[in-house]
Every structure is written in structure tokens, then in C-alpha cells.
């Protein structure tokens, strides 16, 4: 191989590696995207995100932890005839190659008893525990 061709090939390979999107959560785990939490001075807050199960077996989000709150639980808000109801849930089901959306007015990770203020723009750490995929720590952006 001529030195020029070798250089070119290396360059192409390096570029290709850099451009290939890296799947969050590894090839078979859970992809966590668009994770954000509501800014709050005191009291409680909620974190939202999209969870995508890339595996061919069903999984389940069963627990979450963060050091910004005294307790972290999975909760669900529902609206029934104009009434807002909120209750804890045991887990969030993730069908094989399916996804679950945690969003305002629905499922959320509730941050109970904030240990400090959550300011818009900062990032907090959240540990998510999945039945099969195990623990995954994610960065959660605080938004207004």
C-alpha cells in the first residue's frame, strides 16, 4: 500500500468512527433521552425522560435515587373528570424494544423533599434501576 493511500484510509476510518452515533446505554440496554427536572426552590420536584428498551426482552424501571432529594419515587399523575390524581407506582414497564415516556401530567420520577434548590440550567445526577439492565446513572437537566 502506498503511504498516501494508507493515510487516506486511516483518515476515512477515524472520521467514520467519529460520525457513528454512540447509542446511549450500550447496544442492548436502556436508552435514556431528554431527561429533565423541574426547577424548584424547595419542597418537591419531578424528573421526566424517555426510556427506550433496546433489548428483545421486556424490562422494568423499578427504582430511582438522587442525592438532591430525601426520597425518590416513581409516581403517576392522572386526570379524571377534571380531577388531578397522583399516586406512587411500583414500576414503569418497558416492553421488548418498546419505550415509556415520563412526561408532565403523567409518569414521573418524583423528587421528594429537595435537599437543595434546583436551578434552571444545572445538571443533576439520577440513578435509575432496571430489573434486567441494572443501574444506569444519567445526567438530568434542570429546566423552568
Amino acid at each position: 500500500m502506498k503511504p498516501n493511500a494508507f493515510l487516506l484510509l486511516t483518515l476515512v476510518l477515524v472520521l467514520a468512527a467519529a460520525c457513528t452515533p454512540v447509542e446511549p446505554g450500550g447496544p442492548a440496554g436502556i436508552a435514556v433521552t431528554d431527561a429533565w427536572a423541574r426547577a424548584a426552590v424547595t419542597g418537591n420536584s419531578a424528573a421526566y425522560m424517555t426510556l427506550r428498551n433496546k433489548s428483545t426482552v421486556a424490562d422494568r424501571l423499578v427504582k430511582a435515587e438522587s442525592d438532591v432529594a430525601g426520597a425518590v419515587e416513581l409516581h403517576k399523575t392522572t386526570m379524571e373528570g377534571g380531577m388531578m390524581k397522583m399516586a406512587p407506582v411500583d414500576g414503569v414497564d418497558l416492553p421488548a424494544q418498546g419505550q415509556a415516556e415520563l412526561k408532565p401530567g403523567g409518569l414521573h420520577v418524583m423528587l421528594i423533599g429537595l435537599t437543595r434548590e434546583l436551578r434552571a440550567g444545572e445538571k443533576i445526577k439520577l440513578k435509575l434501576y432496571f430489573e434486567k439492565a441494572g443501574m444506569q446513572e444519567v445526567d438530568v437537566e434542570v429546566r423552568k
Partner: protein
Amino acid sequence: MFPKTQPLTARLNTLAHPARRPAGAAGRSRRTLSRVCLALLASLLLAGCLPTAYKLRGVPYERPRPAPALPLTDQAGRPFALADHRGKVLAIYFGYTFCPDVCPITLAQLTQVWRELGAAEAARFQPVFVTVDPDRDTPAVLTRYLAAFDNAVGSDRGLGFIGLHGPADALAAALAGYGAQAIKRPHPSSATGYSMDHTASIFVIDATGTLVEWFPYGAAENDILADVRHLIQQGSRP
């Protein structure tokens, strides 16, 4: 009926009598002409050819009635009276600070509405948060919680969110007046202890103290803003 009629008459008269000439034969015929024009305009108005009356975007009450009393106390400990807020448009929301989801969404909406209003309009818009969880939402908690929304507007105008709380019987009376509900749900296995199921609507009171409409949870911010703005303008007419 036609709030536009008076300014229109004035404008027509100015058109018909540009120099306000004394009424002679010509003046009389001009007056007749202006009357014919007025009649024509009135029929056009009736036919809906000119801009029609504003249609509220929320859910208007079929029979608007004086807003039911909120016999509660504000976060500074002052008794609250609706009569003290005549001339302002009020948005009433029943909720609780422990709720991390639907309540802050709604309060953030009201904050945004306030922010979109001009300074003069904003001074005539008063959001009111009524806690359905007075055990946990003490005046101190309410003050801290609402201050966060006040500060979020990032202005020295000051939003001045009012937070109301009161004993169970007073709260029950306030809720009943608005056809709203709040039910305590214990969650023994949760760190929250309990949650409050509650009506998540926004109730709107106009400048005359009349309960005119309500918005369901999830109503578009622009719709709330448009109605609040309309009611403020309506309230400032003589």
C-alpha cells in the same frame, strides 16, 4: 349592547360636521344623512359584518354569577376578601405545594400570562393559589413556594401571587362555591404520606367580581392570555 356605538356616533358626527357649522338647512340635511348612515351601520353591526363580540376561549358559565367567597387567609395572615380586588381580573387555582407536576405547570402558566401582559394590564391581573392541603401548606411554606414563581418573572414589577389557606370547614366552603373538590389519598408506602386528588381547573373572575368562566387543566396559555386581556380591557371601560 353595542359599546362601539358611542365612539362611532362621535366619529360620524365629526365626519358630518367637520367644522361644527351652525345647523341651517344644509346642517339639517347633513344630520339626516348621518342618521341614515348610523342606521345603516347599526344594521351592519347586527348582521355581523363588523367585528363581532369577543368570544371567551375558556368554558363560560351559562349564568355568570357573583364569584363565591373565599373565606380564607393569605400567606401574610390577612383575611382575604374578593371585594378588595374589584377592578382586577382574578385567576383562582386550587392545588397544593407538595404536588410536583400539574400544580407547578398551572402556576407557571399563570406566571407566563402575567409576564406577557403589559405593565398596566399586569397590574390588573391577580393570580390566586388556594391550598387544598393546609396541614402541610402553612403560610411560611406558601410564601416560599409562591415567591419562586414571583421571582421567576424576573422583573421588579412583582407578580404578587396570593396564596390562600384556611381551616378545613372554610376550605370546604370555598371549594363547594366553585364546584371544586379535594380528597385526601393516603399512600402509606410512599415518602409523600398522602396526596390530594383535586380539581385542576382555573376559575376566572372578571373586574366586576363575576365568575365568568373556567379553563380545564392543559388549556393553551394563549387562550388564557387572550381572555384575561379581554376581561382587563372590558373592566377598564367606563
